[in-house]
């Protein structure tokens, strides 16, 4: 096995914690390492994380944008609204509109805050079954009800009419498979697929039912809330993260989309886990710090690629898995891929545990990014969509850079959403007129 050589390599580079990066880099460098080598290697490692977040985020956004542009059901509002947005009167007055939207956003924020607090209370007193049930019910709703609506609209707009039996059979299988993948176990790609699809569906529901201007206010308010909840000393999300770490449990971000209200959350710590870095091969040596030795005897070394995406998903699926305390849950499986650790075994210290996880992004982030992009694309101006897309991705990158600097949980929404909002409004009102003017005169610019 290659583990012997990599260990040697890693030991040769510095012998300290950061060694395993050496193995990740292209192997032909033998130069003496500089002071900043470690940092740069971390950056390199972080970069691959960023890309592994880019892909699912882009897929989620692509699904939402595609749906918004092909299926009219989601882009037009037929007067029905969510319960959380009580002010839906049609007016022309800008002030009134702004006030109503702000009101809606605040009501929505209130609901989110209440849910968060409820969740934390449950979590604090260890009502795991309750939380788990909550999660199951909400994902059940998404997988069956919302998917049914979506499929119905897709079939309608493409004018396909399969038989009812076929549809019910397909939907039932889809839903059941999804429930299995998310809450029990299933192939990793499938899990990711389901999570992405569910986020996209949720985002579509938001786009459809939130009134025009409320969306922007909600995005803004939620980002601010995310900032507050994660960064303030008494912030609920921070509390959640810390409690989870104290209990040596995976943090639960999946709690997060619960009963239709989601919870913006990124978590994420430790992009740069120095010990068992990107390669699970290399993780053989540091593992003995964190977990007991005998596990190393069965190093099922897998390719790192699969695994890295797994980190993200692991987060999302983690809660359900560990709550039930089943040994053979999906979390356990994921972790076994990463490091040879016996499933169900508690981590020795939570630092090691943090290092396990890599970067994570809550489903809430997926949803709100997609809401922003989907809403931006609903005005038939592709420039706006592209601008928002690039802005959001750059915001995400920047968040991850900050993550590498601060090495603690950070909110992913604020930077991305703010830059997305800025570019949305600028593009819509300033850039597009200019660009249109230029291309009207047939100028290449």
């Amino acid at each position: 096995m290659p583990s012997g050589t990599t260990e040697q390599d890693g030991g040769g580079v510095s012998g300290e914690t950061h060694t395993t990066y050496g193995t990740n880099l292209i192997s032909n460098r033998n130069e003496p390492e500089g002071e900043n080598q470690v940092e740069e290697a971390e950056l390199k490692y972080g970069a691959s994380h960023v890309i592994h977040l880019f892909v699912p985020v882009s897929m989620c956004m692509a699904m939402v944008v595609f749906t918004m542009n092909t299926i009219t059901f989601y882009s037009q509002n037929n007067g029905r609204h969510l319960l959380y947005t009580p002010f839906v009167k049609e007016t022309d007055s800008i002030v009134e509109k702004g006030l109503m939207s702000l009101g809606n956003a605040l009501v929505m924020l209130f609901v989110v805050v209440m849910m968060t607090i409820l969740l934390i209370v449950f979590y604090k007193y260890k009502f795991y079954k309750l939380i788990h049930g909550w999660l199951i019910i909400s994902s059940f709703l998404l997988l069956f009800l919302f998917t049914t609506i979506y499929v119905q609209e897709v079939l309608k707009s493409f004018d396909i009419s399969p038989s009812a039996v076929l549809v019910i059979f397909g939907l039932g299988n889809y839903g059941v498979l999804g429930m299995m993948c998310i809450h029990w176990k299933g192939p990793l790609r499938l899990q990711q697929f389901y999570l992405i699809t569910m986020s996209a569906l949720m985002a579509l529901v938001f786009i459809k039912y939130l009134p025009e201007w409320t969306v922007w206010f909600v995005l803004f308010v939620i980002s601010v809330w995310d900032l507050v909840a994660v960064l303030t000393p008494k912030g609920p999300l921070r509390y959640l993260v810390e409690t989870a770490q104290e209990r040596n449990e995976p943090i639960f971000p999946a709690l997060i989309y619960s009963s239709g209200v989601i919870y913006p959350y990124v978590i994420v710590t430790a992009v740069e886990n120095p010990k068992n870095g990107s390669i699970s091969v290399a993780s053989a040596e540091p593992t003995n710090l964190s977990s007991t030795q005998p596990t190393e005897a069965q190093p099922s070394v897998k390719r790192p690629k699969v695994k890295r995406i797994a980190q993200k998903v692991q987060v999302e699926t983690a809660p359900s898995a560990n709550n039930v305390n089943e040994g053979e849950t999906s979390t356990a499986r994921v972790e076994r891929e990463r490091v040879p650790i016996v499933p169900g075994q508690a981590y020795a210290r939570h630092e090691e545990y943090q290092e396990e996880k890599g970067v994570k992004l809550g489903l809430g982030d997926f949803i709100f990014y997609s809401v922003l992009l989907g809403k931006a694309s609903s005005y038939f101006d592709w420039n706006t969509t592209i601008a928002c897309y690039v802005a959001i991705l750059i915001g995400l990158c920047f968040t991850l850079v900050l993550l590498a600097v601060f090495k603690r949980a950070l909110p992913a929404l604020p930077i991305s959403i703010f830059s997305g909002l800025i570019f949305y409004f600028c593009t819509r009102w300033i850039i597009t007129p200019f660009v249109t003017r230029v291309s009207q005169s047939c100028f290449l610019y």
Partner: protein
Amino acid sequence: MGYPLTIACYIASFSPAIALFYSFIAHDPVQIILFFLGSFFWLVSILFSSLIWFGLSSILPDTFLISLAICIFVQEFSRVAYFMLGLNKITRQGQISVAPGVSDLHNARHMLALVCGLGMGVISALFYTMNAFAIFSGPGTIGLPDALETGVIDPNRAGKYLPLYYTLSAFLLTVFHVTWTIMVWDTCHKIKRSPSAFIPAAAALVSHLFVTFLSSLNSRGFHVIVFSIQFLVLLICIAYCNVIMGGTIGSFVNGISQSIIDAITLKQIRVLIDERKMRNQRHAVPDEPMTERGGVNETGGSNSSAPDTIDA
């Protein structure tokens, strides 16, 4: 008709970008991020220039041409700003760096310029074409009275060739941005050492202005002439970039002819088969993509062979 047309337009306009992306960028996450950062910088530059346009047009009556010129200056300046970000540090040779995929290469800083320039080029081409392509997809066909009235594009001048012109423009923009970035960054890299190093940047600026204002003739219907001149300029720019990277005109011509021959004789497939054979023979071949001058010629080749296919 609509959707196939749109898809064809996208494929044709972004084929060089996709080819470059796959052969140079996609394998390295750092380069992908730099690619996106490049497009972000272009976005910021266009934001500033349209802000300037917005401000100027509220003061002066007709400021369109001035703001277009300013827009070009701002774009070139954004390249300089991007360079100032400290990217030259990445490409220092002989040290462990952030982007091993980049700094190992023979022409590390030019590769980086290619990556970032491609980001800029792709997003500018997207901005230029996306709305037009969306209109092509229907409902309705270009050239109908409604499109004339709303006047989003002026189909009257180009007629049924409008999709072709948009495609060619997008293509030009993508590759031009790459070449301009290489030129400007070369200046930025050398300006401290020799005072005569401003020439590449000046060339980039002049060619950018020239191409832009040449394209205004499009509105009078001289598409064929305009595009042939623009492609000539593009060819000169690519040759100049080749010289900057340390090639000569001879090697440039060689590279192009070689790549054309390769394209005709299906070299890709042959290489693929050869590689497979090699892999089967010995597994320990290190994967070292494009270490040497091959990269440069490849760039020139893929740039120059693509227009042939599109023109034909």
